[in-house]
């Protein structure tokens, strides 16, 4: 006798992602992963920035020139955009990480706390990114 087919619940497929509406906590979570991956991929660029900015005054000139003249054939504004992506990634990853530590320490893992703390994370990281980004692009 054939068994009736059982319901199967698989992970959502990539093609289904757009039809899912994520709550703020879910947005923070996936952005935490994306920002972490971005920081990992740009790690050589970060070490290069550290290298040229700190090694000597001559190399420091190269560091500042990367944002004005450009770097490796890329114009300065592209380098600035990459730096902006780094700034956002770092801020989001760090603040979302602090939210994790805070949740671990206080067991504040209710639906409402998860919702409000996620909004705080999104707001502070975006606000600080806007502030530092405006400075990076010379708005003040």
């Amino acid at each position, binding site marked *: 006798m054939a068994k009736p087919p059982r319901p199967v619940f698989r992970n959502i497929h990539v093609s289904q992602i757009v039809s899912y509406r994520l709550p703020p906590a879910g947005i923070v979570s996936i952005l935490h992963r994306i920002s972490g991956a971005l920081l990992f991929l740009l790690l050589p660029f970060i070490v290069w920035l550290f290298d040229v900015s700190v090694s000597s*005054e001559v190399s420091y000139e190269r560091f500042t020139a990367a944002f004005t003249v450009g770097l490796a054939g890329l114009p300065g504004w592209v380098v600035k955009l990459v730096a902006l992506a780094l700034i956002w990634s770092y801020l989001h990853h760090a603040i979302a990480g602090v939210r994790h530590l805070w949740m671990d320490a206080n067991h504040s893992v209710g639906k409402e706390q998860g919702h409000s703390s996620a909004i705080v994370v999104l707001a502070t990281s975006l606000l600080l990114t806007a502030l530092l980004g405006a400075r990076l692009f010379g708005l003040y």
Partner: protein
Amino acid sequence: MSTNHGSRRLVVGAHYGLRDWLSQRITAALMALYTLVVVVQLLLPGPLGYEKWAGLFAAQWMKVATFVVIVALGQHAWVGLRDIWMDYVKPVGLRLCLQVLTIVWLVGCVGWATQVLWRL
């Protein structure tokens, strides 16, 4: 050896979950603390230029702290990246390749950053 029978018998898991979870948080806390140390020193009065920036890493205690954070970052990124590969890449061979590349990438960056730090 600890009791591993009756109600205390452990039947599942590779038991690195807690270790990874804990190391993820300890390394994160170290990096957050280090960020504060750097930001506070940068906000001290004085023009923000090469002198101040390079001077930050001149003190031996700062070199040691920076080195600890570089290693912590390597460990932190390894746990995170391994999670990503385990979630999205199912073929074992491909996943192993990506994990090896991750380690090569991270060890390379950690080595480079350490060299920059100690030739100052």
